[in-house]
């Protein structure tokens, strides 16, 4: 019995050693494969062009007649209405201009999307091109997931013709890893009936006016005058910034002295004061009903939120019938400096390392950032163009709710761009939340977050 036990042990050890060795061997193979993304491997080349003499870039730009089809994998997380425009108008247009290129568009779920992207890239099956939240780009670039774009034709021209704030989201260590596709911000959206109930005929111009209205409507029952969707940076920043708060210095290198400055503490205390006074709607700490349900009423329940803040998709998703004349978009009320500072969001188009059809995918990126398509998307879906020419297009005036967003963008701020953006935003959100849950004083919470964020910015 003892001998056989030793024997099994021996077999296990030998097999284990063999396995380790073979694993090392296969690792070497893996090490060799990344070069394939630089110079296409034979198989990739074969699939791209039948005749071996054609270089990949020539095959993509040659005359369409005798060219083989290539398929570009495109990932996006467009909403339902936006996807319809993409599939029925944008892609058919592209494919009629470039008959040799097929776009295979996949709508990804937004939940855990970054993890799915990472898994796909690490597993060697990334899409060619993706519409990606612009706060992810620098981190994905840091991970080595994305291609640097300066080598592609006319890359600089696209960047030059886009708004600088949106271009900068593609930056990592001085190089660009994507092109801006669309941008957005959040404006105040008022329920006009409740606004009238609070005693106003038009949107309040200043924070003080808004707070007065909130007090008025609170006296009339279970109504909330101000809705902040949560303590995370996407929901909270606009209020914090408008009231004079700051996250970092203008160059995004330091949080201490900014996030925990007297002005920042005061801004946070002001909002916390609203909360204690009962002016804020339940969503600030995750309560029900949600922002849209509270503003519009839901399942037979009457609306109870006078205002929320949200992006242009609020109008494009719900549709004119239920918003026009009922929901009023307006620039957020101004703070102490006479302006309001909302938060900039948006999406970039990025190409992946390991993309099978980088050149065809780039053609699609050029197409998507062209003035024609940017205007089309803006008109049909309310997405604000990043292309400067498209943003000036007179057709955009037809979209009734868009002007408030364009005006708001003029004074909007971007969230801290950094490969550690996730950690930074979590730290800020946790500081805000700890104050609202009564776990910490504003000053202490912001001091702690500032020192954490200093570390993330210096990493």
């Amino acid at each position, binding site marked *: 019995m003892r001998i*056989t036990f030793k024997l099994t042990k021996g077999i296990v050890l030998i*097999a284990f050693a063999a*396995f380790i060795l073979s694993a090392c061997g296969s690792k070497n193979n893996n090490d060799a494969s990344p070069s394939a993304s630089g110079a296409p491997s034979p198989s990739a080349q074969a699939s791209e062009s039948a005749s071996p003499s054609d270089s990949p870039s020539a095959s993509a730009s040659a005359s369409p007649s005798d060219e083989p089809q290539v398929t570009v994998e495109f990932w996006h997380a467009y909403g339902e209405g936006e996807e319809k425009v993409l599939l029925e108008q944008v892609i058919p247009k592209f494919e009629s201009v470039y008959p040799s290129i097929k776009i295979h568009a996949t709508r990804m779920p937004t939940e855990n999307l*970054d993890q799915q992207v990472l898994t796909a890239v690490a597993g060697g099956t990334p899409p060619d091109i993706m519409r990606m939240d612009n706060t992810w780009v620098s981190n994905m670039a840091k991970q080595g997931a994305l291609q640097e774009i300066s080598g592609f034709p006319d890359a600089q021209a696209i960047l030059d013709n886009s708004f600088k704030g949106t271009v900068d989201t593609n930056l990592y260590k001085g190089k660009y890893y994507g092109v801006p596709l669309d941008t957005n911000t959040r404006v105040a959206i008022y329920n006009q009936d409740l606004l009238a109930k609070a005693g106003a005929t038009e949107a309040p111009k200043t924070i003080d006016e808004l707070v007065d209205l909130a007090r008025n409507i609170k006296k009339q029952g279970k109504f909330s005058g101000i809705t902040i969707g949560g303590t995370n940076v996407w929901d909270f920043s606009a209020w914090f910034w408008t009231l004079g708060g700051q996250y970092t210095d203008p160059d995004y290198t330091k949080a201490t002295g900014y996030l925990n400055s007297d002005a920042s503490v005061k801004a946070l205390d002001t909002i916390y004061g609203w909360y204690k006074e009962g002016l804020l709607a*339940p969503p600030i700490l*995750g*309560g*029900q*009903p949600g922002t849209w349900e509270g503003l519009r009423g839901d399942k037979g329940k009457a609306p109870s939120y006078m205002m929320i803040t949200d992006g242009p998709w609020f109008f494009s998703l719900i549709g004119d019938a239920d918003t026009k004349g009922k929901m009023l978009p307006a620039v957020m009320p101004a703070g102490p400096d006479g302006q309001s500072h909302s938060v900039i969001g948006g999406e970039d188009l990025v190409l992946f390392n390991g993309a099978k059809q980088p050149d065809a995918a780039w053609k699609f990126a050029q197409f998507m950032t062209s003035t024609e398509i940017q205007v089309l998307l803006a008109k049909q879906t309310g997405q604000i163009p990043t292309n400067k020419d498209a943003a000036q297009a007179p057709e955009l005036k037809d979209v009734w709710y868009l002007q408030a967003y364009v005006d708001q963008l003029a004074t909007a701020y971007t969230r801290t761009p950094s490969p550690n953006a996730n950690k930074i935003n979590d730290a800020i959100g946790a500081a805000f939340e700890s104050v609202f849950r009564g776990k910490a004083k504003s000053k202490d919470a912001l001091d702690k977050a500032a020192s954490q964020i200093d570390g993330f910015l210096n990493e």
Partner: protein
Amino acid sequence: MRKALKQYAQVSPYLVVGLALTLAFVLYPMAKGMYISFFHYNVIKPETSESAGLSNFKHVFTDPMIGTALRNSLLMAIVTVPGQWIAGIVLALLIQMKTVRLKVFWRLIYYVPVISSWIVVSYLFRFLFADGHEGMINYLLVDILHLIGEPIGWLQNTGTANLVVWLVSIWKGAGWVMVLYLAALQSIPRSLYEAAEIDGARPAAAFLNITLPLVRPLTAYVIINLVNGAIQAFIQVYAITQGGPMDSTQLLNTYLYKQAFQYFDFGYASAISVCLGVLIFALTYTQQRSIGRDRIEF
């Protein structure tokens, strides 16, 4: 000796399959995880990973969130292991009673949670315990039974959020314990109970002095598995609270998942998981040793 070798040659093809699978899916990932824990690991381009020495492990012992996560993981074990065990035994005893009919039906009912998807039951509980009047439990407590005045924000407070997580864990695991004990109970000779009855033993005494001692090997096995499962719990928190509010319901597993897949810090995540592995080993080691030693002959 020669005979033994010959036997090995005959069975080796079958052993090799299992061995290969274990190597590929257990030992290799384990070794690789330990390896990663010594690096600032870049999962997309592993060749660019920088060595981290012991800094990832140092971070484990200085990160205040580890304390919270460890507390929650240990509480998970302290609450749900006895919870599942007691619920499982009680169910088994109830179904085993002479007066209970439709035994197969009851067995099936209580086993259904075990075979249902974790994701599905987690979401189910998330909806049951939703905030405001929209949540079923709140509706029941406030609007039907009038037990409380205001709806409870179940998932907005650390205590109640943990309670929901524990409830789903116990509810889902009790059926597994029940089935194992049902099998064990059937193997205990009836004569022992009859003898006890003649001696005037009450059912409770019979349970404590006959049933429990006779199923002791099974109990050790069940407890080890429950502790193991509790410390390694993941989906219930991931799907119900996402660690919130304010990361106060994170378990070690959900926290390391966040480090790996939200912050892309695979080195640190692996260091946490290595420590977690050591912890589980330590917690179950003494019981592991005794398993299989005490055979009970009837």
